[in-house]
């Protein structure tokens, strides 16, 4: 009896040993091991990372409604999970969005994690770990008075989005299509940021706002009329050549996408889980 027990324990141990020693890479990739950061990512041990965010762009990155000292949003929550998974402490560096990339390039921050769209041009200055993509929506005043149900419906109307955004380009393309179809063009207005664009909509200066697809901006005043995918990938910005950090973030995002944590974040901020993009390091 004792022998049988011993034998079965021995057999289990052997099997376990084979499993552990036979596929170490698989075991490492499969789950977070924050306590092993020193051996897995020696370059990161003992560091406190600085993560650049704007905290001024709901739902991507913003201040918590009840405690403004707390930073939340799709990107910050993702960041918290990723750095917990890596096992490296970090702090948010809160600054204006336009200052985030220069600070990353200069080494004032280690990471920019705030709705950074991928463009080949930007990839010349920073390395990307891509993990999601941009969905856009046409937001209209409550009740949709102009009956907008597609981009084509914008012909002859006035529409706003943030200066330099991909939505502005979309509006331009739509307007060109309107003209080609002998319809009146779209009057395009560029706003400084998202809230001031929304303000243009709620004060009746424009007919539609184009921007990130969240359930509603101010449910009392607005509604989403139409959503579409831009196909533009979004990533974490990392300083050029910071291989260790890129690997660490890439590994962790993969784990979080595999174990369903990522999906939870999409739900938390009313974003479409279909926007998810498998983790990928983009160096150019």
């Amino acid at each position, binding site marked *: 009896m004792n022998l049988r027990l011993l034998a079965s324990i021995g057999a289990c141990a052997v099997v376990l040993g084979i499993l552990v020693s036979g596929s170490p890479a698989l075991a490492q990739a499969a789950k977070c091991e924050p306590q092993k950061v020193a051996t897995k990512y020696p370059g990161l041990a003992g560091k406190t990372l600085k993560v650049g965010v704007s905290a001024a762009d709901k739902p991507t990155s913003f201040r918590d*409604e009840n405690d403004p*000292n707390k930073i939340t949003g799709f990107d910050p929550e993702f960041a918290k999970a990723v750095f917990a998974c890596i096992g490296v402490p970090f702090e948010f560096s809160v*600054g204006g969005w336009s200052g985030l990339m*220069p600070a990353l390039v*200069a080494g004032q921050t280690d990471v920019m994690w705030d709705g950074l769209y991928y463009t080949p041009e930007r990839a010349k200055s920073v390395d990307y770990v891509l993990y999601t993509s941009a969905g856009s929506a046409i937001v209209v005043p409550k009740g949709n008075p102009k009956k907008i149900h597609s981009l084509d419906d914008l012909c002859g109307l006035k529409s706003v989005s943030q200066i330099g955004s991909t939505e502005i380009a979309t509006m331009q393309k739509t307007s060109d299509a309107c003209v080609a179809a002998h319809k009146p063009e779209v009057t395009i207005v560029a706003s400084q940021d998202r*809230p001031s664009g929304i303000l243009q909509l709620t004060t009746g200066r424009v007919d539609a706002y184009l921007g990130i697809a969240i359930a509603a901006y101010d449910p*009392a005043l607005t509604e989403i009329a139409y959503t579409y995918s831009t196909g533009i990938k979004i990533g974490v910005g990392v300083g050029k050549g910071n291989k260790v950090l890129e690997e660490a973030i890439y590994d962790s995002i993969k784990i979080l996408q595999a174990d369903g944590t990522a999906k939870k974040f999409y739900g938390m901020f009313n974003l479409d889980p279909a926007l998810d993009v498998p983790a990928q390091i983009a160096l150019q």
Partner: protein
Amino acid sequence: MHVSIFHRPAYFAVIATLSVLSVFGIRIAYAADADLSRLEATGVWLQNVGHYATMPFLLRGAYLAIEISVLALSGGLMLGLLLAVMRLSRLKAARGFAWGYVWFVRGTPLLLQLVFLYDALPAIGIKLDSFTTAVLGFALNEAAFSAEFIRGGLLSVNRNQTVAAASLGMSPFLSLRRIILPQAMRAILPAVANSAVSMIKGTSVASVIFVNELTFRSEQIVAQNFQFFTVLTAAGLIYLAMTTVVGSAQAALERHYSLDRDASSQKPSVFARLRNLFPRRAAAPVCTEPVGPLPAVNNWLEDFGAAFPPLVNDKDTRCLVCTNVQKSYGDKEILRGLDLTVERGEVVVIIGPSGSGKSTLLRLINHLEHLDWGEIKVDGAYVGYEKIGNGLKPQRDLAKARAAARIGMVFQHFNLFDHLTALENVIETPVHVYGENPEKARARGMRLLDSVGLSNHANLLPHRLSGGQQQRVAIARALAISPRLMLFDEPTSALDPELVDEVLGTIRSLALGGMTMVVVTHEIRFAREVADRIVFIDEGEIVEQGTPEKVLGSPEHDRTRRFLRIVEHA
């Protein structure tokens, strides 16, 4: 009593702004929530504004804006003063540097400068944190702007103030600190307040370098709840509170530097009240201080005569020796090899047409201007020159040389320090140049003012005195340095006729007291009465000299006769 139509302007501004904001805000509130009654909507909106205006998260942002502004403004103003002085300097390199700095910093966007400091300097190994970068960036920027308005302030102070300070042996730095800056403050202060206000509001630019001040924090709140108007109104109120403080400080400072501050009906300034909280030991009001027995007018010189022993030796009775003095301004020759000797105790009166070089000679004697050629000795010594080979070379520290020479100078336009009372004018040099004990200097200053008949006016500012009184204060001020030689440059030319006599009387009593004096004047009657010797100068040279009887009574030269005819018929 001083009554202003701008009485308590800050309160009016606050009430007016609040009313305007409320009207707009309430309208928005109606639009936003048509279901609520008007009164309810208004109440809710105001409550929300109040909530955000007192939110610790936003107030911390406001505090950060203040911290950055206070540090950057202090640093910027100091650097700005330095740049302003450099721009007014005689050194071409200093002028050029300051001009270049202002040109570049003022001409490039602040945003760019901040991003450069924060994001470009790391490339050469200098990694500054956000706060340091913001303070540094705003200070460097403020320096460029303040350099210009400080320079404007310095230029607004009459040049004769600088000349008077120099004649009293004040160093350029002392003169800037004690004489020029306090007067320039009246012109500079409004611009400083403007700077402070725009800096407090402008710190929001620094959000690109991760400074989370009030505006950026409000934007973050707006991004979260989209209550654009409510949050920004609250932020506006916080800004208004901060800038109201700046405005009050400006008003208090302006009262402090006002030329009405000596008026007895005026309330004491904030600073005076603060000072009174910490009384200095033995600081009795000057006007009630016992001055002691007053010296008789004719021998009061003895009161300070011991302060000026002769420099070289007692046997040399010559106080002033000018040899072959030459001076030109550009191509125009002013003095062409003039020789003049003045004995100790002698009163020499110089007369001559305008532009004949009389005033220039006086300015050369106490080295307010450099000699072109020749030499001048006072009590056997050069004033601020050293002999090198055959010529003279001006010394570096001219102010010290002038102070050591103790030559008193009285100007045509008095040149009193406008921001100092009569007594302060008199004791300024003894205390700050010669390091005399202030209490002793005050007592002596009062005796001097008494001897020119003005002890009742000791605490008045110059602009409250008549021209004659101002000139008598100026004489007392010159006497306060215990001069071994007094120079008078047309001391009565700027006076109304009825005021001339009181000044001449004072000078006359000085002459009787044995003071060595060189007087330039057009008052022929006075010259005849007071002069030991009359010197007639025309076109940069001495035409003739001698006793008053000889030069004025029977002049040898045509030019002298012609001049006397014109002057006596004027």
